[in-house]
């Protein structure tokens, strides 16, 4: 779907040659492109086929159905917000941004949609990708098609191992297990004297990897800790009665849960019904993704709750975050989750890379030059300064903290807010995760 916001449409109308103008047919545009190519040949790093003022097409792949649809919607909304903002400010190098949105579904169909964006829609870059099951397939396709791909939340990890250590065109999200590592670091700080831990996560790689990583980290801080129970219900399960009974039966001091979607809310409700957290501490590494559904009536104070890379109510948040949260709430009647930050960062860093590669000029740079400019680039995102590591992995902060009812919302927030950088909580490029964790000096 050609997904144009009102502001984008207006800007597209204001800039010629117009995208939908009947005065230009395909042949004429190709002719113009040919002329531009001849002119641009004077500089080797300038893309030949881009006329100034012509919209720059950016592809977006977003999940739009199923359990992860709210996550995809959040990323798409943030990208649209970014595009409107950029277009109001005059576009990128004078060219308005036009988003071309396709659905992220299963790997097979998403690979086909991705190829459509690049080969058919001729986008300059593709943004998005959430499920690692899908982005593992997209990574090699991005390399084949020689077009920058900036993934919101998907990696090219197989388990906790990187499968594409030296990509040229693929830019990937933070390692999947980082939030579990952050939680492992913070657990002994807030829950002293923990001796036994039970774990529950979804029955797929993310759930298993988070649990393994959390155990490895906690073991470093609390060597005599015992892991007494591990449960892996299927993603999408809505009845946790038996799981909660098993958790109660284990008499663990603490429950670690890596649920990230509606199941986090459901287990919280069902746990509240039997008073689970009256006798047990709780760590929810990723439930901040559904934060405004964690109502005070069933979510107790005192849990460790992770918000991934953006905490919407960060007291130290900058004016960009505050403006985004205000406008997002006004438009969508909810508070933005972390996926917005990944999406905004990807789009904003792409814009910054184009401008950097243009070296102050107005000529549109080659895709390869944009990729070069992205490496190591740092920009202001919703959550603050974020950057790309040299091996094309996102660097950012993770936000976790202790749940509190002391706020003006009907759901829990966190206080104090702990901010842990990926410099501390993500394995360095080329490192093996568990060797790296075991090598920590504590």
């Amino acid at each position, binding site marked *: 779907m050609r997904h144009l916001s009102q502001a984008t449409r207006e800007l597209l109308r204001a800039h010629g040659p117009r995208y939908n103008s009947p005065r230009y047919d395909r042949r004429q545009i190709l002719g113009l492109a040919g002329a531009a190519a001849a002119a641009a040949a004077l500089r080797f790093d300038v893309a030949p086929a881009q006329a100034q003022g012509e919209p720059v097409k950016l592809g977006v792949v977003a999940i739009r159905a199923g359990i992860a649809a709210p996550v995809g919607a959040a990323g798409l909304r943030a990208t649209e917000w970014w595009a409107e903002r950029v277009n109001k400010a005059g576009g990128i190098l004078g060219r308005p941004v036009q988003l071309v949105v396709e659905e992220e579904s299963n790997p097979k169909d998403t690979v086909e949609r991705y190829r459509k964006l690049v080969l058919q829609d001729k986008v300059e870059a593709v943004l998005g990708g959430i499920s690692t099951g899908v982005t593992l397939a997209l990574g090699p396709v991005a390399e084949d098609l020689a077009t920058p791909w900036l993934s919101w939340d998907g990696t090219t990890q197989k*388990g906790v191992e990187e499968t594409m250590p030296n990509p040229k065109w693929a830019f990937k999200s933070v390692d999947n297990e980082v939030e579990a590592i952050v939680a492992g670091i913070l657990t002994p700080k807030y829950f002293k004297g923990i001796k036994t831990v039970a774990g529950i996560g979804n029955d797929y790689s993310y759930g298993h990897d988070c649990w393994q990583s959390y155990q490895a980290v906690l073991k470093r801080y609390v060597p005599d800790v015992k892991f007494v129970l591990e449960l892996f219900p299927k993603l999408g399960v809505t009845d946790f009665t038996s799981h909660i009974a098993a958790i109660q039966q284990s008499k663990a001091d603490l429950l670690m849960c890596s649920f990230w979607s509606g199941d986090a809310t459901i287990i919280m409700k069902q746990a509240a019904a039997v008073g689970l957290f009256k006798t047990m501490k709780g760590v929810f590494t990723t439930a901040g993704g559904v934060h405004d559904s964690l109502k005070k009536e069933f979510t107790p104070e005192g849990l460790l709750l992770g918000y991934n890379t953006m905490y919407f109510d960060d007291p130290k948040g900058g004016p960009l975050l505050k403006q985004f949260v205000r406008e997002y709430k006004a438009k969508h009647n909810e508070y933005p989750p972390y996926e917005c930050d990944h999406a905004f960062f990807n789009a904003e860093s792409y814009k910054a890379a184009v401008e950097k590669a243009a070296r102050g000029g107005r000529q549109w740079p080659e895709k390869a030059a944009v990729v070069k400019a992205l490496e190591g680039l740092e920009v202001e995102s919703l959550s603050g300064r974020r950057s790309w590591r040299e091996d094309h992995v996102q660097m950012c902060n993770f936000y976790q903290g202790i749940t509190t009812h002391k706020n003006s919302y009907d759901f829990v927030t966190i206080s104090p807010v702990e901010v842990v950088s990926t410099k501390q909580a993500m394995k360095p490029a080329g490192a093996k995760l568990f060797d790296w964790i075991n090598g920590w000096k504590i």
Partner: protein
Amino acid sequence: MTGRLLVAAAAAAIAVAPLVASTYHVLLMLPFMAYAVVLLGLNLLFGYAGLVSFGHALFIGIGAYTGAFLTSHCKIRSLEVILIAAAALGALVAAPVGALCVRYVKIYFGMLTLAFGMVFHTFVLKFYRLTGGDEGTPFLRPSLLGRSLEAMPKIDYLVGPYYYYSLAVLVLATLCMWRIVHSPFGLCLKTIRDNPAKAETLGIGVTRYRFHAFVISAVYAAVGGALLGPPIGNVDPTLAYWTHSGNIVFMTLLGGFTSFFGPVVGAFVFIYLQHWVMSVVPYWRLIFGAILAAIVIFAPGGLLGLLEPRRAAVRL
């Protein structure tokens, strides 16, 4: 005669597509050709034997995972070896599954095949070390007729040699299936479909014939599954999920299970319709659901049935 001309024209169009069509549309032809192979087999069961399988994604998965496993873990890149291995493994798994399933008909057959399909899906999801779990297994670029073609850009490989290789497999599969359905075996299947009791009294081993049809259709599905893998590059459990089985039944209904080429047409229309509708509206599943309902109610003979309304509904 007109039919033969149409088939020849379609074959010629497919053959020249890489020369005239856009790269993206040529790439879309790859899953079409893979599904066409799958559906030729599925329709032997559905259209000719009268058994609707809701678990054929099991065999697509077997074909795709065979290729992924051989290329990723065994360093076997030959597509000829992969296709033969996929066919053999498809037959091997189909034998016990088919032996149990073909004892039942109608909804019981459908439910049993669905159950076996989901057993396989759970297997590939759970046996992480062997299958890669939800993350799947890479299907590395296979060599074709002994030529590695590794140096060629992937897109050039797919729209060039791999395209024509897939086309050759499709043509071969079509000719074989044509022979099968026009053989005494095919005639017996039709008799069984129309009146199993009468077929039994004529001395036709109903269960045995259904079993053979099941195994042949599984072999076709496995070969088609192996062809699906290289364009994706990564094989994952969604290929073996029940919704995928549903999709191929939908393709068969869309094109028309009452005609030999109906399912092939269904695969083509499904893929290009999906390509178009997905880009236009996010609620494409709703539209596909409505199309399915419309076909079942107003055009049970599928698209090819619409083209020849005067002929009997079941003409196989």
